[in-house]
């Protein structure tokens, strides 16, 4: 009899709620019972609300058990776990879980499915096929395919990837760089992390394709320090790729050389801004640079540099495999393809949902998310991280489309969706937006450095009911200044959440309303 495969994710969310203890209990119980199993530490499918999600493979079908605790393991074995036996934790086949079935998995197709550190497993699931195809087709064809796909930067800014790559390819210079921004600092986002923990070789392949397309021989990944488990998985994957000749000199006899260096951040939110990240990669303070010059012309160490987010780079392999038109066929308007939405905060079914653009906020929150975890009504959702607007229920039917969100004074950003129930104090959250900016501002430009501190003070006065009308006007004026005159999105977009609270939840500044009515 062949060994039964049992999967337990080695992924931050799963491990944070006990997956390591569950894996240990499974190994020990199997040994004690004399059952021969192969324990595989996969990545996460992204259904974080079900973690730890244990799977057992029975006749080629994976049967899922959700929210497993170490204390459940003995009973699960007693209930014939190895044959997918019935147990209260059993959810049936993984591929029949509605949360997962109804997604459009393009970039995250291997997450959860494979052992992230197994090169054979990766190659069995199309791994490195796109890079091989890129070598055969040539860099011009790769640039054209990426442009045809309509892929836009998934870090938040949504800049067309094809144009960025073309600019670097056309830039003059012996040395060019690919830099991967893995400084995923936005609250409510974890798609980069799930990708890097579940399919790190997929990111490596994407970076190598980018390097080949623009003729860069060196890549850097800038990973935030808050992700220690990701660090361990990613560095092992880089070693694996290098040992197998998928990184290094003359990759697979193609004549193309490319290697990756992994850098760790040090707890600065602004280092997620591309030029601050480049400064940090150069060993300096993460202070934002003036633009121009664009990084594509003068980036890392002054050389032409591609700066792309993890998900952007990881999306490219399937675009090469399946064609740019196929990707462009998904989504709506100028928002092509898919985005990995992340349901977070006060939500019943939190996790990652990769879906074509055009899905509405309401579908994500209600159909996938199942409403709030507390069971209370949703009051607001913040989309796009700490610099994103708070959106009221009246706008939940807005389709996920970069331009549609801009139209309502919001942004999709990196796709994080943080849900708040009706207990949320929106005035406090507006204050927090300014406070966070004051803590994290790099200090280079005045509107951000000083404006954020003044913003906290003004909001404090409004909350305590001092000169509310005047302070309201002052806050709007301050938001205008920060938005128009800041050097980067930190100061330039902190007004988004603040204004959205003023526009949609002004009643939470209760004391500010009263004087107006006098």
């Amino acid at each position: 009899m062949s060994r039964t495969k049992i999967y337990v994710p080695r992924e931050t969310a799963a491990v944070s709620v006990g997956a390591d203890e569950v894996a240990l209990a499974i190994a020990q119980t199997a040994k004690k019972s004399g059952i021969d199993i192969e324990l595989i530490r996969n990545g996460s499918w992204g259904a974080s609300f079900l973690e730890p999600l244990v799977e057992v493979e029975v006749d080629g079908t994976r049967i899922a058990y959700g929210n497993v605790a170490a204390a459940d393991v003995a009973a699960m074995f007693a209930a014939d776990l190895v044959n997918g036996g019935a147990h209260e934790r059993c959810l049936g086949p993984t591929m029949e879980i509605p949360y997962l079935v109804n997604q459009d998995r393009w970039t995250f197709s291997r997450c959860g499915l494979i052992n992230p550190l197994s090169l054979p497993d990766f190659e069995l699931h199309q791994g490195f096929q796109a890079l091989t195809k890129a070598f055969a087709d040539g860099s011009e064809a790769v640039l054209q395919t990426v442009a045809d796909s309509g892929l836009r930067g998934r870090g938040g800014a949504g800049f067309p990837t094809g144009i960025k790559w073309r600019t670097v390819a056309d830039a003059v210079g012996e040395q060019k760089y690919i830099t991967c921004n893995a400084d995923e600092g936005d609250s409510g986002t974890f798609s980069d992390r799930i990708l890097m923990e579940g399919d790190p070789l997929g990111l490596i392949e994407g970076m190598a394709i980018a390097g080949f397309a623009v003729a860069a021989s060196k890549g850097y990944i800038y990973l935030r320090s808050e992700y220690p488990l990701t660090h361990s998985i990613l560095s092992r994957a880089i070693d694996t790729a290098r040992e197998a000749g998928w990184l290094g000199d003359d990759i697979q006899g193609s004549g193309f050389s490319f290697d990756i260096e992994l850098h760790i951040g040090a707890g600065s939110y602004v280092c997620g801004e591309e030029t601050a990240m480049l400064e940090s990669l150069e060993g300096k303070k993460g202070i934002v640079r003036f633009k121009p010059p664009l990084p594509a012309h003068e980036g890392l160490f002054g050389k032409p540099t591609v700066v792309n987010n993890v998900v952007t780079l990881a999306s490219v392999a399937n675009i090469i495999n399946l064609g740019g038109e196929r990707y462009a066929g998904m989504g709506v308007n100028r928002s092509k393809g898919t985005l990995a939405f992340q349901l977070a905060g006060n939500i019943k079914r939190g996790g990652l949902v990769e879906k074509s653009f055009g899905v509405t906020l309401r579908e994500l929150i209600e159909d996938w998310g199942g409403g709030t975890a507390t069971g209370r009504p949703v009051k607001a959702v913040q989309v796009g991280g700490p610099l994103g607007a708070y959106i009221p229920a009246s706008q939940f039917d807005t389709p996920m489309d970069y331009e549609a969100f801009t139209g309502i004074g919001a942004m999709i950003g990196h796709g994080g969706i943080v849900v708040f129930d009706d207990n949320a104090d929106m005035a406090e959250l507006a204050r927090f937006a300014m406070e966070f900016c004051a803590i994290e501002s790099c200090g280079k430009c005045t509107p951000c450095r000083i404006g954020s501190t003044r913003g906290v003070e003004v909001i404090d006065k409004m909350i305590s009911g001092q000169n509310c009308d005047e302070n309201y006007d002052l806050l709007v004026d301050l938001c205008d200044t920060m938005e128009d005159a800041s050097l980067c999105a930190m100061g330039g977009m902190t007004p988004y959440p603040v204004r959205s609270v003023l526009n949609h939840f002004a009643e939470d500044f209760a004391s500010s309303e009263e004087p107006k009515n006098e």
Partner: protein
Amino acid sequence: MARIDKDTTSAIVAKFGGKPELLVQIMATIVNRFGWVPEDTIRQLATELNLSRADVHGVVEYYHDFRTEEPGKHIIKICQAEACQAMGSKALTDYAEKTLAMSMHDTENDITLEPVYCLGNCACSPAIMANGKTFGRVDEKRFNAIMDDLRGKA
């Protein structure tokens, strides 16, 4: 945690090829192993990397991770970002401060308590990090269990 000595600092610098452009990585390695960067280490790094002390100081002061004071044996970070706020991180923080009889940013009785802005565990909020390990769905009971476990291992 042992205090970093001169030879270890030199060895870490050598491991990174003595390259000044790897200052952030060198510093991160030091803080990961020793918890903080003492003043004499800053001087030594400046000398060995051929940087000005102001440059090294600037980097140390800029990044939240680079402590200039010795932390406790156990470092507890409680996420203060929006997703965790939506699930009661403020109440959890209050509870932690009360039961540990200390405030954020303080070090008391071998424990350092710090805020952190997102651990990327936002679907399992509220989240904390204890000695480099992330924990999710942390309520008061679970917080106590994590602390008991840490102290037991001490």
